[in-house]
């Protein structure tokens, strides 16, 4: 087990190293420098270059950059002068986290109920509903769903505010828009797994022992059906990150995603690259946790992984 974890961690660190290196060389390849101001005399520019270490050979700069990133220093924003990127990201993090976590909770609860009902009432209207929701969930992206929710629940019915973020009620629509993919993924997974588990011999045994229907479902079917849900962790993380970019934009939520899209608009390169690194770290962590949990749950993966 330890070897497996170590191996996975190593790959993840390698991937992270590649990403950060790529972002560094991209920032060097970008046209212009932060000090391309005609008003600066060559003298001053030289001093600025010296101050920020831009006159050093590129490999020395690379080494410094890597060391800085390793310590969580992502440089300063070009647009909001001299504000550290990492600080700007951390400031925006709670709002994004809140909406994302709430979307996952919505998705898990609704998706599980839908999936369970669909599996128990297999081949009925409920089942069809779950299948339709599953197809719609992967086909209707959040950047279409967001405006639809804004239009119906916000403008027409007036139940929820459609933009900004002042109190909890403002978070409902963004979370809902984000959660549909979660709902459909969870519902489809639970449904398929439960149908498969319900055909197993140990379920027949549990029923034959005389357990009540509810006990069989809760203790035996659902518990075994939940295990494979671990595999959707990494895709869900990617989805929440990408979804946050558009959903925060649509609902004018002051989160990381909105800041990222704004930084693209104003060409704030250091902000773009810093956020990119931050997102990559999040994703790679999710992938790592998923791999480790999968290794714990299913020892076959661990062993075949170690043999390679």
């Amino acid at each position, binding site marked *: 087990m330890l070897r497996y974890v170590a191996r996975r961690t190593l*790959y993840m660190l*390698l*991937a992270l190293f590649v990403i950060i290196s790529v*972002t560094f060389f*991209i920032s060097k*390849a970008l046209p212009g420098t932060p000090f391309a101001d005609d008003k600066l005399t060559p003298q001053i520019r030289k001093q600025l270059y010296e101050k920020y270490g831009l006159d050093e050979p590129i490999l020395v700069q690379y080494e410094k950059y890597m060391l800085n990133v390793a310590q969580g220093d992502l440089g300063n924003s070009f647009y909001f002068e001299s504000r550290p990127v990492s600080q700007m990201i951390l400031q925006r993090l709670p709002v994004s986290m809140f909406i994302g976590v709430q979307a996952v909770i919505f998705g898990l609860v609704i998706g599980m109920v839908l999936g369970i009902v669909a599996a128990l009432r297999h081949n009925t209207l409920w089942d069809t509903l779950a299948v339709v929701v599953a197809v719609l969930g992967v086909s*209707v*992206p959040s*950047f279409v769903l967001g405006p639809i929710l804004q239009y119906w629940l916000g403008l027409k019915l007036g139940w929820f505010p459609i933009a900004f973020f002042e109190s909890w009620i403002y978070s409902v629509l963004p979370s809902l828009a984000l959660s549909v993919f979660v709902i459909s993924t969870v519902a489809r997974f639970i449904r398929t797994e439960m149908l498969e588990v319900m055909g197993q011999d140990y379920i027949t045994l549990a029923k034959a022992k005389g357990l009540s229907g509810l006990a069989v479902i809760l203790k035996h079917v659902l518990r075994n059906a939940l295990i494979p849900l671990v595999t959707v962790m990494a895709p869900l993380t990617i989805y929440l990150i990408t979804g946050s970019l*558009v959903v925060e934009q649509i609902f004018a939520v002051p989160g990381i995603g909105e800041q990222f899209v704004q930084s693209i608009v104003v060409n704030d390169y250091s902000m773009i690259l810093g956020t990119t690194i931050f997102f990559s770290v999040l994703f790679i962590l999710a992938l790592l946790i998923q791999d480790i949990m999968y290794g714990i749950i299913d020892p076959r993966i661990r062993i075949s992984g170690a043999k390679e």
Partner: protein
Amino acid sequence: METRHRELDPRLFESVEIDAYEGERIAGPPVGFWKDSWVRLKKNRGALISLAVLVLVFIVAFVIGPLISTHSPYDQNMTQRYLGPTSDYWFGTDKFGRDMWTRVWAGARVSLYIGLLAALLDIFVGVVYGAVSGYLGGRVDDVMQRIIEILNGIPSLIIAILAMIVFNPGIITISIAIGLTGWTFMARIVRGRMIQLKDQEFALASRSLGASGFRVVWKHLIPNSLGLIVINLMFTIPSAIFAEAFLSFIGLGIQVPEASLGSLISDGAGELRFHPYLLWLPSIVFCLLMICFNLLGDGLRDALDPKMRK
């Protein structure tokens, strides 16, 4: 009761010729894998309708849409801004007075092009990479799989965004971005299938008859993986279409004045309060494409690989 008795006479019977081969007679024409799958697919109404809708969208986007309209997607007409759908402008006009009908279909063309490109990349890079890696095995396989693992550790969207920043945003850059990462899943699937097939008897027979590695893969292993490849293609296409629309939505994809469904939806979302049709029309076309590709993919999976049906 009196038992009636009747003399048995050979003339009462008709002798039947016993044909040893009769039991082996094949009643209908042989049904191959593809025919069989097609029969199964035809039973799936959702998939068939999706296929028809996709063909229709394809024809309208590439042929009928631009042909029957007298407007160009780029001409601005400031006197005719925000016209709702009319007999002249079927989908209305946007804030610059541009014709939405032609713009929406131009966007659909971009989506279909991206889907096609992703499919081609999947075949020419993903399948080839997976086949080489799986068939050769050993050290080569190790190195090739490590490369994929590192690529998979990087969210493809991040790669796309970085590519957009370095090169000029546009359809070529999007193609490059999708090309860099889109094929890895297919490569893994094909590799697994190659490993599973390459030691089976038919491959061994071909090898012992002196077939080269290329011939074994091309004539025996690939044809036996085609079902799997087609199924995967059908799921690559909608995710590539989504990636392009997403990038265009956040302003990193297709740039004005070109139109993409993503950028049209983004513009429409801004006009939601007063001109909602600007949002609905591109959204409907986009969702229609996505739903149809997904349903067709589901249908093909059930048809080509009935064991995977759940």
